[in-house]
């Protein structure tokens, strides 16, 4: 991956781990160990991705995020501790693009980074077609088929699929999904989301009980993995 990544992490061992993993993939990595330092680095270098640890010593990671988002659209991957679902959701709502919970495996880290970079680099899928598993979706003609046979999706199921697919690889919070698919009035009715994701799984997953495309991010939202 020919990308430049800024890693903001105060624990030197974790910083080294992430740096090595990214450099192993061919990324150019800059680092910052504090909030202040990170804003300077982000402002003076051209970066394609930022990896930000929420638990920084001097500034609240959330503050760094807000600062960044006030002048940049660079994708941000949050590193968070387990059990802080509230923080993750808040960070995502503040403009972070995805999160990784510590402890994480290097493979997960790279998968998330790839997904975010791909989205950022390719602004849209020109063909309007998406294939995953044995499903083929054509968003121009608004058809979905599985194993060659047409699958009927209701209006809402279809809209949910498009929102998820448009953000493939990235986690979407419950709030975001409710707002995009159902509308602002429904932001607190998460149970709709669960039922409809369940229906999409039933219709489009090989094994709905063990889904591989429509993934649950507990306490945060959902992620579509083509």
């Amino acid at each position, binding site marked *: 991956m020919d990308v430049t990544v800024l890693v903001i992490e105060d624990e030197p061992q974790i910083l080294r*781990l992430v740096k090595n993993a990214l450099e192993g993939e061919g990324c150019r990595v800059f680092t910052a160990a504090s909030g202040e330092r990170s804003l300077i680095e982000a402002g003076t270098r051209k970066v394609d991705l930022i990896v930000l640890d929420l638990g920084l010593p001097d500034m609240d990671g959330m503050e760094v995020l807000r600062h960044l988002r006030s002048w940049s659209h660079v994708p941000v991957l949050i590193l968070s501790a387990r059990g802080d679902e509230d923080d993750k959701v808040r960070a995502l709502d503040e403009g972070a693009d995805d999160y990784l919970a510590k402890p994480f495996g290097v493979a997960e880290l790279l998968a998330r980074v790839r997904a975010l970079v791909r989205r950022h680099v390719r602004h849209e899928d020109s063909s309007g077609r998406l294939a995953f598993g044995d499903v083929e979706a054509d968003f121009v003609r608004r058809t979905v088929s599985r194993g060659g046979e047409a699958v009927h999706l209701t209006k809402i199921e279809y809209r949910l699929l498009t929102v998820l697919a448009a953000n493939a690889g990235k986690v979407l919070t419950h709030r975001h999904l409710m707002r995009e698919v159902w509308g602002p009035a429904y932001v607190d009715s998460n149970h709709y989301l669960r039922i409809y994701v369940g229906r999409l*799984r039933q219709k489009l997953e090989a094994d709905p009980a063990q889904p591989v495309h429509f993934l649950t991010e507990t306490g945060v939202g959902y992620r579509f993995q083509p």
Partner: protein
Amino acid sequence: MNRSFPLPSARAGAWALAVLASVATALVAVPLRGPLGPANIAMLFLIVVFFVALRLGRGPAVLTAGINVVLLDYVIVPPHFGLIPADVQYIVTLGVMLTVGLVTAHLADGLRRQAAVAAGEERETRLLYELARELAGSANRDQIHAALASYSAKRGRRVALHLGEDQPAPAGALAYPLDAAGTPLGTLYLLDADAGGRPARQAEDVRLQAVASLLATALERLHYVRLAQDNEVEIAAERLRNSVLAAVSHDLRTPMTVLIGLADSLHLSREPLPPAAAETSLALLRQARAIGNLLNNVLDMARLHSGKTRLRREWQLFDDLIAASLRLLKPQLADHPVKVRLQPDLPLVELDAVLMERVVCNLIDNAAKYSPAGAPIEVGTYVDEAGSRAWIEVCDHGPGFPAGKLARMFELFERGNPESAVPGLGLGLAICQRIVAAHGGGIEARNRPEGGACVKLWLPLGNPPPVDDDA
């Protein structure tokens, strides 16, 4: 004012003193015969009767009264040294004097008795109050016994206190059971029950009942103080244990993150490792993940116990929960095929997704840990016949729970086999139980007849909100 009045019993000395008093008065009166008339001297004699009654008792006072009349008649009233008074009016004087003397004797004696009785009562009450105060301040049974002994010694009675019910009653003793809210604590025995007359026995009976009730209260208080102390010690110990666990696991989080990350990098290294090294790196990764899981359990337990966790209930689908848990445990399930049987159209259940995911993960992780490689794991969901509970069941084909320990498996730090090579702290099932209980549900463990362990949990079904379907 603690002057002790002697009890009303006439002593030989008292009679002698009575006679002496009369004679002394007469000797004093004779020289005053002239200036004071007989009437005035009679008053003098009366005063003496009064004081004798007050100090020496009724008997001597009556004697004094009688002797006074005789002496007055013989020595003072004219004719001197003659018994028959010259003037008839003196008969009245003598008669009245005798009457008044007797009445005075009687009244003064009564006054004296009453004062003695009141003083006696006051003393008894004071001793009872001192006993109550000592019992209230007693910190153990020995002090209770000592307070009772001191009380009985001051009163000159003999009592015995038997605590509990296993000692035989002393012969001939009156028993006063110590009872607190229906629980027998012991018995108070009065050993010299026959001393004193019947009225004394009745008063004593009332008093001893009061003593018995004081003893019962004191014993009960000791019991609850000890209970509270034990409880406090236990709470402090558990709180300490939890904060130590939390601090330790907090400090371990960064090294764990690095460890798992590095183990993962090694395992996935670009250049293929020689087979032995590849196997080692896989084993390293597995153990690292197992420790990571232990750490998570410890942190969860500490958080649950700190009381700061509040359930964030939302209407969720069991399917979601199971799917998320299975995905989280993918590495651990590499050697164990999972058969999932979900009841279709299971209603929404109100639960905290993050906590319940922990529960399901713990159950599935246990099943994987204790199953031989290749053995399948079964996960199922269903609603029971009554329709009020939603169940999740996780079964494996491992050795099962040790017989006889089924009931204890959900206790803290309880491990099936303490010497097991499988890493564990015995927290997983305890956490499951606490989380499920916080949801108002339940969890059970059993061994399958065909081999293997099964753990199933249930959550109550509520009234899920309706979902407007679109076509």
